[in-house]
């Protein structure tokens, strides 16, 4: 049985070293600009950083994937094409792309460069995935976090490229690459500028013991005294409807699918992805080490150890997300 590949995030060079040292099989990262979906202040890699990161990872037999997974803006293709060219030049093992125009550019210009389809493409059915494979030679698809495990199994039975699924971290409950909630509130797009809930538009206001989080001038949540907080995203906002404040889309929570390793293996999944390029290196070292231990135990047919990752999760709660969602 081929073991799962463990794909880990890095938002800076120290985080990359932490991921490699903790047992990643591959690390994904982005350049320091709007070409990736985690374009946050102070985060990401310069070209020189990527060169050093690739050298560090390759020396330890770990792969580096470069996420270029936002959508190029009309009339301004150059930053995205340059990112693909530089990823190839710097010997990245794969690029993670979402836009069809950029996939076409990469396939033509760099035929030897391995292409992965980003979750941002939201390819969730057989026909869409086959099209990406046939048209651009995509070798792996990162599945959106809206599919159940049986959905993934059915999909894998009908396609002949690898699938990668998220197993831990921030949980985007929307059709990724198509969500405009943050854009409506801030005027900046996760899909074009790479910023969901951009920090420039986020404010936190202590109100006595409560904490209000505001996005683009809208109050999107008020956490009571002692209540665990979450990211300031609208999909996890708490709004008053019929005089009752409630989470309309999703509660502040993090994905953790460690208990589903047997089911994901049976469903034909090739690689498991940890979310969190925006997180600190302490998160990365802790979560990657936990998953490494779990995957090693699973590969040997041993019981997966129960590892405490409560301290790392949003809202203090964990979920298996859509993978086990009964109402679907």
């Amino acid at each position, binding site marked *: 049985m081929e073991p799962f590949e463990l794909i880990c995030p890095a*938002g*800076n*060079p*120290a*985080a990359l070293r932490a991921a490699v040292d903790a047992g990643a099989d591959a690390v994904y990262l982005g350049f320091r600009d709007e070409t990736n979906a985690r374009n*946050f*202040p*102070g*985060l990401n890699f310069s070209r020189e950083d990527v060169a050093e990161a690739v050298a560090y990872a390759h020396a330890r037999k770990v792969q580096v994937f470069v996420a270029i997974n936002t959508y190029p803006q009309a009339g301004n293709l150059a930053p995205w094409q340059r990112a693909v060219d530089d990823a190839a030049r710097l010997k990245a093992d794969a690029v993670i792309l979402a836009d069809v125009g950029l996939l076409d550019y990469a396939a033509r210009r760099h035929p030897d460069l391995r292409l992965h389809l980003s979750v941002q493409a939201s390819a969730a059915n057989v026909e869409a995935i086959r099209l990406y494979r046939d048209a651009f030679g995509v070798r792996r698809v990162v599945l959106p976090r809206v599919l159940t495990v049986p959905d993934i199994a059915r999909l894998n039975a009908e396609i002949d490229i690898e699938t990668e699924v998220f197993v831990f971290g921030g949980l985007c409950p929307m059709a990724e690459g198509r969500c405009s909630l943050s854009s409506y509130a801030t005027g900046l797009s996760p899909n074009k500028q790479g910023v969901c809930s*951009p*920090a*420039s538009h*986020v*404010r*936190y*206001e*202590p109100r006595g013991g409560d*904490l209000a989080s505001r996005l683009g001038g809208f109050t999107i949540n008020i*956490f009571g005294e*002692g*209540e*665990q*907080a*979450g*990211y300031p995203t609208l999909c996890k906002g708490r709004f008053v409807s019929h005089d009752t404040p409630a989470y309309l889309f999703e509660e*502040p929570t993090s994905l953790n699918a460690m208990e589903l390793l047997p089911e994901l293996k049976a469903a034909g999944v090739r690689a498991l992805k940890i979310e969190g390029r*925006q*997180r*600190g*290196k*302490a*998160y990365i*070292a*802790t979560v990657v*080490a*936990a998953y490494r*231990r779990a995957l090693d135990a699973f590969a040997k047919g041993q019981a997966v*150890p*129960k*590892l*405490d*990752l409560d*301290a*790392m*999760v*949003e*809202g*203090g709660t964990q979920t298996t997300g859509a993978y086990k969602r009964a109402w679907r």
Partner: protein
Amino acid sequence: MRDPGMQTDEPTDDDRARAVEVNLTRAGLRLARQLGDGLGGLLFDRLFRILADRHPRAFAALVELPDARLLIDPVDAPAALLLRVGPQLALRVSERDAQADATVRGPCGRLLDLLEGRIDGDALFFRRELTIEGDTALILALRNTLDGEEMDLFADVATAAGPLRHALPVARRNAGRVLRLLDTAHRLAPPPLRWGLAALERRVAGPRREA
């Protein structure tokens, strides 16, 4: 950083050494406040030069930020710090109510952990151990810049300690072990000896947390 699944309530040697460092930091802040902006400012400038030599990439990034002031408030320490980022990068001791573009508040130990990347800032925020106000982008830029470094405040400072630079990391490494031995001896000792050990422990660990 502890191995997940192996956490216990018993403090580790690392926790004990960290407690000593927290007390040293508090004592440093108290001293800086007493010295005022003149001599205290010179000390902070010297600290910044040491750290900039060790972490040039991070300091270059801080200088490139737009001019802004960030109040760093260790709530269990005698004073706060005002960090000015941008071309006039500087650090000064400050009152807690100083005007700033952004504020980060949390226990002194947690802020040290954050500075050195021993703990994840988002996790601290989720648990409400860290409070932030004002310009969130500024706080995020600072956090991400520092997290990209492998910073160890006391080891970095030790590099500038002249002949003591080799002794300080050893002393630090052993501080936790010494305090653990004192803990054990304290539990096992008869009462008169226990009181003596408690006094000795206080001297090693430094002044206790202030109200």
